[in-house]
């Protein structure tokens, strides 16, 4: 269960399955840091005061849904569901995200977040349920043309599984759109899962962002599709 081989991941199981094939060439590459087959990119886990956010993240490892509400711009509370395909369990958890520090500059912004959740892990195909939790950090820096992000997370699914994962992203916007325009980003995500056989995964992806909608689609070097959707209102 712990040494999961990602090559067998079946992209057809992915929510909102996208019609992508291995022929998709890796248009962008940027060498990046370290990173896991298990991290889900929770971009901007805290919204503006009174803001609701829905995030659906799908990659070679898991399908997740996260709904959160931000009473202030400092923290958000919400519900998280995770379906770990090869690890064989589901997680239902209450999640708390905190913005520890934001650095606002004239042309850029950087953030440091902490994230944690506590809930129930259920092993699929059995009646094995156990308390579970996760905790991690996330940090990012961006201006209107460049984006960097690093995040990690340790997950303990009771007596079912436990694992650590981390990921990093680099992004570049080919043009600067104004408020309300379609914003396009070319990104590369590197995931690192120390315990996995294929511990590094590289995923070139594109991000499209307009109004309250954000969509990301990509394909990893292991042939696994990534598809994320974020709605913020």
């Amino acid at each position: 269960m712990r040494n999961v081989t990602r090559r067998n991941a079946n992209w057809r199981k992915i929510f909102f399955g996208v019609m992508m094939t291995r022929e998709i060439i890796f248009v962008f590459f940027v060498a990046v840091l370290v990173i896991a087959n298990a991290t889900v990119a929770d971009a901007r886990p805290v919204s503006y005061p009174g803001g609701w956010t829905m995030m659906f993240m799908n990659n070679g490892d898991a399908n997740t849904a996260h709904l959160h509400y931000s009473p202030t711009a400092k923290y958000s509370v919400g519900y998280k569901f995770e379906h770990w395909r090869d690890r064989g369990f589901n997680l239902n958890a209450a999640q708390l995200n905190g913005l520890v520090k934001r650095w606002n500059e004239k042309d850029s912004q950087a953030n440091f977040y902490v994230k944690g959740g506590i809930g129930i892990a259920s092993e699929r195909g059995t009646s094995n349920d156990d308390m579970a939790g996760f905790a991690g950090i996330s940090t990012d820096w961006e201006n209107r043309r460049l984006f960097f992000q690093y995040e990690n997370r340790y997950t303990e699914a009771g007596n079912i599984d436990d694992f650590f994962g981390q990921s990093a992203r680099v992004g570049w916007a080919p043009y600067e759109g104004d408020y309300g325009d379609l914003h396009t980003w070319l990104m590369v995500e590197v995931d690192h899962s120390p315990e996995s056989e294929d511990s590094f995964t590289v995923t070139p992806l594109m991000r499209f962002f307009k109004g309250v909608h954000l969509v990301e689609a990509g394909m990893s070097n292991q042939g696994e599709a990534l598809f994320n959707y974020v709605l913020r209102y």
Partner: protein
Amino acid sequence: MKKIIFMFTALMVSFAISAQAQSMTGTHAEHGDHDNHAHVEQPLVQGAQDDKTVAGDVHVSVKGLVCDFCARALEKVFGKQEAVNDIDVDLDNKLITIDFKDGQSLNDDTIRALIQDSGYNVENIHRVTE
């Protein structure tokens, strides 16, 4: 499970301490640097109630205004204010223009506090007097 409870608790305690520290910094800064944190805890000022409140549009240069989410945050927060008629966000120049309803306005301190509570900082405020 003990590990995760310990980690979760440690993260949340560190977050709480950090938030408290920033809050205290903001309280001290209210007497000086207005770019620091300053929560609005009193009813928002509307109408010409002090010497900083002047009718007319207000241009605010905002630090950290780098994406549509940031712009939307400011639009939402100011949109809830009774005195505000409309807000325009210019990402290129990191500038917001606040259009007030006739005879109404918000003073500079309130505008700063609203922007800071949205997660951003004010660089400067310029009023276009009628």
